[in-house]
């Protein structure tokens, strides 16, 4: 890939990240607005979140970011076999995150906590409905981004196995950038839906 083409790709991915960041920022602003309106219900709703599952997922996602960053480093060093292994590690951690997230939703649905009105879970009125609607919407949107990231990592593994990793350094860097951005979004979702239990 020519340097000009690589620069154009990097710019395109940064613009994509900017648009994704603004999409999530709109939802963060919505959350903040409703939290200001229903502080007690939001704080109590967070106590229904499965905190240990969110915590384990946070640790997992940070580890996956490290794995993918290390894969880029190994590509710079020209160690093709090691690159595929680190990418595989990042993908395995991403799959673990998805599995835990789905299990967590399963727990919530079992308790009757669903998005929007009509749930039969703990009744905190409109505040709780809004909290869990945003919870499903934002964690769901984040999960979709993570699944896209997993598909990209799988594509990269196939690419790197077929040729020298150094030849695919730019796609590797760009997927790593996207993956780290998805991790960064989770760093805010984790406190918003699991840890902010005060302020009632």
């Amino acid at each position, binding site marked *: 890939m020519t340097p000009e083409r690589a*620069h154009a790709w*990097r*710019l395109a991915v*940064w*613009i994509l*990240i*900017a648009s994704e*960041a*603004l999409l999530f*920022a*709109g939802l*963060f*602003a919505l959350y*903040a*607005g409703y939290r*200001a*309106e229903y502080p007690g219900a939001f704080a109590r709703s967070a106590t229904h979140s499965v*905190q240990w599952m969110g*915590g384990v997922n*946070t*640790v997992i996602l*940070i*580890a996956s*970011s*490290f794995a993918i*960053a*290390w894969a*880029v*480093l190994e590509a*710079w060093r020209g160690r093709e076999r090691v690159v595929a292994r680190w990418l595989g590690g990042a993908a395995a951690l991403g799959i673990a995150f998805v599995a835990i997230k789905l299990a967590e939703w399963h727990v919530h649905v079992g308790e009757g906590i669903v998005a929007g009105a009509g749930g039969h879970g703990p009744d905190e009125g409109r505040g709780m409905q809004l909290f869990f609607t945003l919870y499903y919407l934002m964690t769901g949107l984040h999960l979709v981004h993570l699944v896209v990231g997993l598909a990209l990592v799988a594509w990269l593994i196939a690419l790197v196995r077929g040729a020298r990793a150094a030849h695919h350094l730019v796609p590797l860097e760009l997927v*790593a*950038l996207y993956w*780290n*951005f998805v*991790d*960064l979004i989770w*760093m*805010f979702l*984790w*406190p*918003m839906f*699991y*840890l*902010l*239990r*005060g*302020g009632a």
Partner: protein
Amino acid sequence: MSGRTLVLTFVALELLAGASWLASGTGLPIAVAFVQALVSATWFMELRTAHPVHRAIALAILFFIALLCAGTAADSGLR
């Protein structure tokens, strides 16, 4: 980017996540999230050594998010 920097970034992010968990129930975890985002963007996303245009895009993102937050806060505060 050196291996040592990546390991240090990883350890810092995990420690901050732990601190956030311990501070559950207070407003501190949101402040910790901003620090984590800064650390991750600087080293994992390599903004520290990125092209100036990419850094400008990152700054534009921050500016628009700040604008959105200020608008939301003003709306909530003035009701």
